[in-house]
C-alpha cells in the first residue's frame, strides 16, 4: 500500500503547526470522504493530522442568541441537538437526509464542508478532470452529466457540491471560523466557496494550512419555520439530484422574510438571493413562489442531459414554500 504518516493532534494550534510542517499533509476528520479518495488514489497525502479528538465538539449559544457549532461535532450529534431541531429545523433535516447513520456517527461538521464532489470523472484517475488534474479537461460536459451543475458552473467544470448540511447552513448565513499559524479568522459561507471559473481545483477561500474550528449561526427567528427537501434517485444512500432549504415568515398573507438555498445544482451550496428578493413583501401564494424560483433559475445554463433540474428546482421551491406557508398560523 502507499504509506502515509499519521499523527493525532492534541490542540488546535498544535494541529495547525503539524500541517504547516508538511505541505503534503491533510487534516483527517471522520475520514468518510478522504479515506475513500485515498483508496482510489485521488488523494495521496504524505501525512494525516487527525483532528477528530480536538476539543471542538460542543454546540453553544452565542451572546446574541445564535449557535456556535464546533468543527468536530458529528453529524449525528448536530442533527439530534435540541436547539438545532427547534431553532433551525431545516439544518437537522438536511443532516439526516445525508448518509446512513454509521457515516453520520463519524462525519464531522468541518469535514462535511470540505468534502469533494462525487462526480464520477473526478474519482476515475483514467479520465480527464480539471478539478483533479488541472488543465486536463472536463469529461462531464460531453459525457455523463445528468446530475451535474446548472448554476454557476463554467466550461472548465460542471461538478456539484455534495453536501446537504451546507445547503441549510447557506440559507442561515453561517460563518465559518478557522485557525492559522497567524491567528484565527472567519469567512461567511457565502464567501467560503470560490467561483469555479478556470480554477475548479481551488475550492475554498480558506488560507493555506487553515483548520476549520467551527461554524456560527447568527440568530434567525425565521429559521424556526424551515424545511429541507431532498430528491434523489433512490430513497436512501444517494446524493441529491436537487434539494431545497427554505424558511418562511408570513404575516397577513404577505412574506415578511424568506430564506432559500439550493443543493446539487452548483459547485457550492447555492443561496438563492434573487428568489428571496422576489419573495420579500410579496403575497405568500403559488404565483409568487413560482416567480421567485424563475428569478433564481433565469441564470441556469443546463447541459443537454440535465435540463430537468431547472424544472425540478422550480417545482421543489413551489412545493416547499407552499407547505411552509400552509403551516403558518392564521
Amino acid at each position, binding site marked *: *500500500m502507499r504509506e502515509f504518516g499519521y499523527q493525532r493532534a492534541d490542540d488546535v494550534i498544535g494541529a495547525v503547526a503539524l500541517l504547516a510542517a508538511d505541505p503534503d499533509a491533510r487534516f483527517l476528520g471522520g475520514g468518510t470522504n478522504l479515506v475513500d479518495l485515498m483508496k482510489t488514489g485521488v488523494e495521496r497525502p504524505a501525512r494525516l493530522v487527525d483532528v477528530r479528538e480536538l476539543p471542538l465538539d460542543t454546540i453553544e449559544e452565542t451572546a446574541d442568541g445564535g449557535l456556535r457549532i464546533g468543527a468536530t461535532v458529528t453529524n449525528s450529534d448536530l442533527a439530534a441537538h435540541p436547539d438545532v431541531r427547534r431553532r433551525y429545523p431545516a439544518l437537522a433535516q438536511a443532516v439526516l437526509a445525508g448518509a446512513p447513520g454509521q457515516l453520520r456517527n463519524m462525519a464531522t461538521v468541518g469535514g462535511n464542508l470540505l468534502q469533494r464532489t462525487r462526480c464520477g470523472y473526478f474519482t476515475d484517475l*483514467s479520465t480527464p478532470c480539471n478539478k483533479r488534474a488541472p488543465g486536463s479537461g472536463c469529461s462531464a460536459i460531453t459525457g*455523463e452529466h*445528468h446530475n451535474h451543475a446548472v448554476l454557476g458552473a463554467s466550461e472548465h467544470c460542471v461538478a456539484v457540491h455534495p453536501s446537504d448540511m451546507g445547503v441549510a447552513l447557506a440559507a442561515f448565513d453561517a460563518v465559518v471560523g478557522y485557525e492559522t499559524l497567524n491567528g484565527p479568522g472567519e469567512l461567511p459561507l457565502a464567501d467560503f466557496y470560490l467561483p469555479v471559473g478556470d480554477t475548479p481545483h481551488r475550492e475554498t477561500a480558506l488560507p493555506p494550512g487553515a483548520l476549520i474550528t467551527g461554524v456560527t449561526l447568527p440568530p434567525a427567528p425565521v429559521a424556526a419555520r424551515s424545511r429541507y427537501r431532498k430528491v434523489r434517485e433512490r430513497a436512501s444512500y444517494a446524493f441529491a439530484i436537487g434539494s431545497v432549504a427554505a424558511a418562511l415568515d408570513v404575516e397577513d398573507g404577505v412574506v415578511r422574510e424568506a430564506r432559500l438555498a439550493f443543493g446539487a445544482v452548483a459547485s457550492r451550496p447555492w443561496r438563492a438571493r434573487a428568489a428571496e428578493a422576489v419573495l420579500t413583501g410579496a403575497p405568500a401564494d403559488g404565483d409568487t413562489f413560482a416567480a421567485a424560483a424563475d428569478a433564481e433559475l433565469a441564470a441556469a445554463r443546463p447541459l443537454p442531459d440535465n435540463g430537468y433540474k431547472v424544472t425540478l428546482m422550480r417545482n421543489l421551491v413551489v412545493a416547499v414554500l407552499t407547505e411552509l406557508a400552509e403551516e403558518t398560523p392564521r
Partner: protein
Amino acid sequence: MTTATTGRAALKGVVGTPHTRVEGRDKVTGAARYAGEIPFADLAHGWLVLSTVARGRIRAIDTEPVLALPGVLAVLHHGNAPRVDTDYIGLLGMPPDPTAAVFQQDRVHHVGWPVALVVAETPEQAREAAEALVVAYDEEPHDTALTTGHPGAHPAGGVMPGETAKGDLEAGLAASAVVVDEEYTTPEEHHSMMEPHAATARWDGGRLEVVDSNQGTTWIQGELASMFSLDASAVRVRSEHIGGGFGSKGLRAHQVAAVMAATELQRPVRVVMTRRQMFSLAGYRSPTLQRVRLGADADGRLLALEHRSLNQTSTVHEFVEPSAGVARVMYDADAHHTANEVAPLDVPSPTFMRAPGEAPGSFAIESALDELAERAGIDPIALRLRNEPEVGPVSGLPFSSRNLDACFREGARRFGWAERDPRPGRRREGRWLLGTGTAAASFHAGAGPSTAVVTAQADGGFTVRIAAADIGTGARTALTLVAADALEVAPDRVRVRIGDSDFGPAMIAGGSMGTRSWAWAIRLAARELRERLALGTTIPPEGITVRSDTTEALGTLAQKERHSFGAQFAEVAVDTATGEVRVRRMLGIFAAGRIVNPLTARNQLVGGMVWGISMALHEEAVRDRTSGALYAPDLAGYHVATNADVGDIQADWVEDPDPDDPVGIKGVGEIGIVGAAAAVANAVWHATGVRHRSLPIRPDRVLSASVPAAGGDPHA
C-alpha cells in the same frame, strides 16, 4: 456398531416445513469463512492490472521498476504467462470466454481487460505495485454504443434458437382491431452481489487445489482442467460459502490468474477482485433494445405477435440475452415471430444475470400487453387469461403444468384488484399519484445431471455429499430437508456437505435448476440406502454408502414445456413534481413446483421481486462513449434498491407440484424478478397516464415525460 434402522418413529413430510438455515449461526457469528479469508501458509497475493483503453494493442509493459518494489514476487503478462487451451466446450455447452483466459494475447478488447497480474507477499504490496505498473498501448478507435440497426447486429442462438417464425405477421397486424407497436429498452445491469470474486490456488502433491467462491465446483473444475490440460481428477475446487452469485460466479480471470501464479511460484496465490474491477471482469447483463408488435381482435385475442431483441456482446465472446424468448412460452398467435440479435462491441462480455432473457424480455412484452389492454379496454388480467395457450406456442408440446390462472386469481383476490379503477391518473394522496399494475411471469423448470453420495454412519447419523453450491439461497438447508424426508429421519440427523468437486459431478447453482437437480440425486441415493437399511443390516464402522447418478433418469423425461409461472402486482406512488417513484406494495403469487422450505423459498422470491424494483427504478450502468469505460463503477454510483425503496412486499404460492419430479420441485431461483419491473412500470402508467418504456424509471425521466393533468385520459 449400531443395528441399522433409520429411526424407530419414521418421520415423513419435512419437505414443505419451515426450517432456518443450517449454517445460519455460523454466518451471523462470522464462523463461516468465505473464499477471500481462508488462511493458507506461505500465501502470496496477486493483484490484477486492467487496461485503461477500450481497444488496441499492448506495446510495452515496464515490469522492471515494479519487480524492484518491496515484496513483489512476479509480474505475469502476455509475454511470460503460461499458454492455456481455450478450444473446448464447457459444462454449459459454451466455449470459454477468452476474457478469463488471461494474458494470452497482446490485444486489448475493452476497458478493464486484464493485462497483468502483480504477485507480492502482501495484498497491500501487490496493489501498490499493480498501480505503479506502466503499460503502454497502441490505442485504436472504439465503438461501445449499442444502437438500433447497429451494422454488426445479427440473429444469434445460444441456449435457444435465435429466430422463430410462423404465420404472416403483416397480414395479422392488418387484420387486427387493436395494435401495439412500441420499443422498449433496458440498460446495462451488474450483478452486484455482496461478496467479491476471490480464489486461492495451490499445488498439493501434484494436484491443483482452488478455493473459490463460485456457483458450481465441478463446473470450475472442468473449466480449469480443460484450460490447463489437466485430468479432471487432478483438479479439486472447493467453495463452501458464497456471498451471492446471481449468474456471475463462473470461470473468471481471477481463478485462471491465480492458477498461473501458483504454478509459476510454486506457492499458494490468492487473487481477489475489487468492486471496481468487478464492473469489468465479473460479467453483466447487456443492455437490450426491444421492439414488440401485438395485434388483437376486439376481444383482445392475439392475432399477431412479434418480439425482437438486440443485445451487445464483446468482440471475443458471443453471449445472447434471449429476451425475445418469453413469448415462445407465454403467448400464442397465428402470426408469431421472435428474434434475438447481438452486436459485438468493444465492451466486456455480458453473461447470465438474474433470469437472463426473461427479466428484460418480460419487461417489454408484459408492458406491451398492458398497453394492449388499455387500448382494447380490457382488464389486463382478463386479457392474459384470454390468451392462455393450450400448448407451447412455438414447440407445440404440452405443458407439464401451467397454473398461471390460479396465480392471477389468488393474486387479484389478495391484492384487491377488483376495486381498481382502470382509468389512469385518478387516485391522489397529497403530493403522490397512486397506481397499480400487474404482469405475468414464467421461468424454465429444468434439471441437470448430478451425482450424490449418502452415507449411513454407525452413530445413527447420515452424511450427504454433493457438489452443490449454496449461493445464499438456502440450498444446503433445502437439501437437508430433502434427504431427511427421503430417509424418513429428523433433519438434525442429516449433515449435508456441499461445495467440493471431490464429491462428484453435479449441476451448478444456476438456471433455477440447482436444488431440483441435487434433490433428485440425493433422493435416489437416500431411498436406496433406506431400502438397504430396512433389511436390518448392521452398519460397519466405515458406514454404508450409496451413490446415485441422475443422468439416466433425466434422459427418459418426456419432451414437454416445463416452466414455473407467476403473477406480479405492484402499487406505486409518483410525485410528478419531483419525479420520485415509490413502490408501496408488491405481491407475487407463484406456481413454482413443490416448495421445499417455505422460509428460504419466500426469501428467494421476495429477493427476486426486490431486484425487480431495483431494475424498474434504479439499476443502470452508464458507459462513457469517449473513454469506453463505465461512469462511476462502484456501489455509490451504481444504485441498487435499498430497504427504504421497498414497501410492503409479499410472496406466496399456489399448489403446483411438478408431476415428473421425484420431489415435485420446479425451482424458485429466478422467477421472482420476472415480470416485476413490468408490474412496477404498468403501475407508474396507471398512476400518471404516462408510459415509461425505458428502464430505469429515474426521476429525470418522469419529469421529462409529458404529464397530462390528473384525471385526463391520454388516449381519449
